[in-house]
């Protein structure tokens, strides 16, 4: 298994500001993902964080709003830019093993006022 930590665990932010969420894994992994879980809903994939290249975004998500960095095989960041109350969600990172099993971080609970 993989141990994943996220910082911050929660935050309350003002409209128009940006927040960067960090994801750290205890071992090198190839595949890292960022998900959003809106209140009372399921998980939606935002993007795949690629090491050494630009992230791959899913439909409905753009780099200007959710820039992602992946400087090495154990770390990634997701920034939520120019936030609005609609961005209030839990943001989770995950990593995948070769058999497609994904391990999830504890999540970052974001509230935008």
């Amino acid at each position: 298994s993989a141990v994943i930590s996220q910082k911050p665990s929660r935050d309350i932010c003002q409209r128009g500001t940006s927040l960067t969420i960090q994801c750290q894994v205890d071992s090198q992994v190839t595949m890292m993902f960022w998900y959003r879980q809106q209140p009372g809903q399921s998980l939606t994939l935002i993007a795949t964080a690629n090491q050494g290249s630009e992230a791959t975004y899913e439909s409905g998500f753009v780099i200007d709003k959710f820039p992602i960095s992946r400087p090495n095989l154990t770390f990634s960041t997701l920034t939520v830019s120019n936030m609005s109350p609609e961005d209030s969600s839990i943001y989770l990172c995950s990593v995948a093993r070769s058999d497609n099993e994904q391990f999830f971080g504890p999540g970052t609970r974001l509230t935008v006022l």
Partner: protein
Amino acid sequence: AQSVTQLDSQVPVFEEAPVELRCNYSSSVSVYLFWYVQYPNQGLQLLLKYLSGSTLVKGINGFEAEFNKSQTSFHLRKPSVHISDTAEYFCAVSQTTGNMLTFGGGTRLMVKP
């Protein structure tokens, strides 16, 4: 493209009763299947997975699921639930040739004393 449908958004059940949480999927290619559990204010934890082989899969905490290819289903069952099983349960699929997970909408299991 693939999709996952969890037919029940909420399932109330009394303690020590059996429970079945339903999951159906659609995909034009072979898939791997997963069940995750999310306890309140926590991240996701893998309950069990089907990759290949026996269609009856046993997981943690006494849960099991059966893969039925003809009915494209992967229902989760437990013969006797505990109060501590109260949580949100997510069914997910991924293509065998890729890592991306597609989640169902989730089922909230509410175990009553």
